[in-house]
């Protein structure tokens, strides 16, 4: 799991591995993260997820070895 920019600073990691229950989705993962850092809850509307380099909805199921990215609104250019 990768976190970028403001989310990286908020969660305190740029890369982290994590075990999830069977049937976990991106929503499951986000709930875990918010349980640890309640002030992250307000970031949910602006956060986008990617699974293996492709944008993904929070209903997306996760599998062993997936690379998940937590991304705030982009600011490139």
């Amino acid at each position, binding site marked *: 799991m*990768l976190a*970028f*920019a*403001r989310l*990286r600073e908020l969660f305190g990691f740029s890369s982290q591995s994590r075990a999830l229950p069977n049937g976990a989705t991106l929503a499951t993962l986000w709930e875990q993260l918010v349980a640890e850092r309640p002030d992250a809850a307000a970031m949910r509307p*602006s956060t986008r997820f*990617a699974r293996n*380099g*492709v944008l993904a909805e929070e209903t997306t199921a996760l599998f062993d070895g997936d690379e998940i*990215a937590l*991304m*705030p*609104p*982009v*600011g*490139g*250019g």
Partner: protein
Amino acid sequence: MIAVVEAPIALDALVAAVRTDACGAVVTFLGVVRATSAGDERPVDGLTYEAYPAMALSEMQVIATEARSRFDADVAIVHRTGALALGEASVGIAAASAHRGVAFDACEYVIDQLKLRVPVWKKEHYVDGDATWRANTIAP
């Protein structure tokens, strides 16, 4: 040439990457660090850019392919990451085509799409010592 780099962007290399003998026009765009940001009056003394490199590269490649198919123009895109000082270029784009109109259109398309879609983030560092992550505004 599609790249995310730490080193300064070389404009001549971008041009060389897209020009062929069939090209009559090469349009380039440089995004440079400026002294004030939109919507914030505090003077800026630098920016830090951070990318999700693998996804940034694939998204830039998709945009380049779109530009080629929509405009019949070859494009090169380089985004720089790390700490940039005032006046340094964060992004460089070159678009080459037989005719100038499509080269302009392709270059503008690429920077517009890059700002919307490519996973890169910037933190503005102000002269007063404060810093803020600044998202691109979505055009209406």
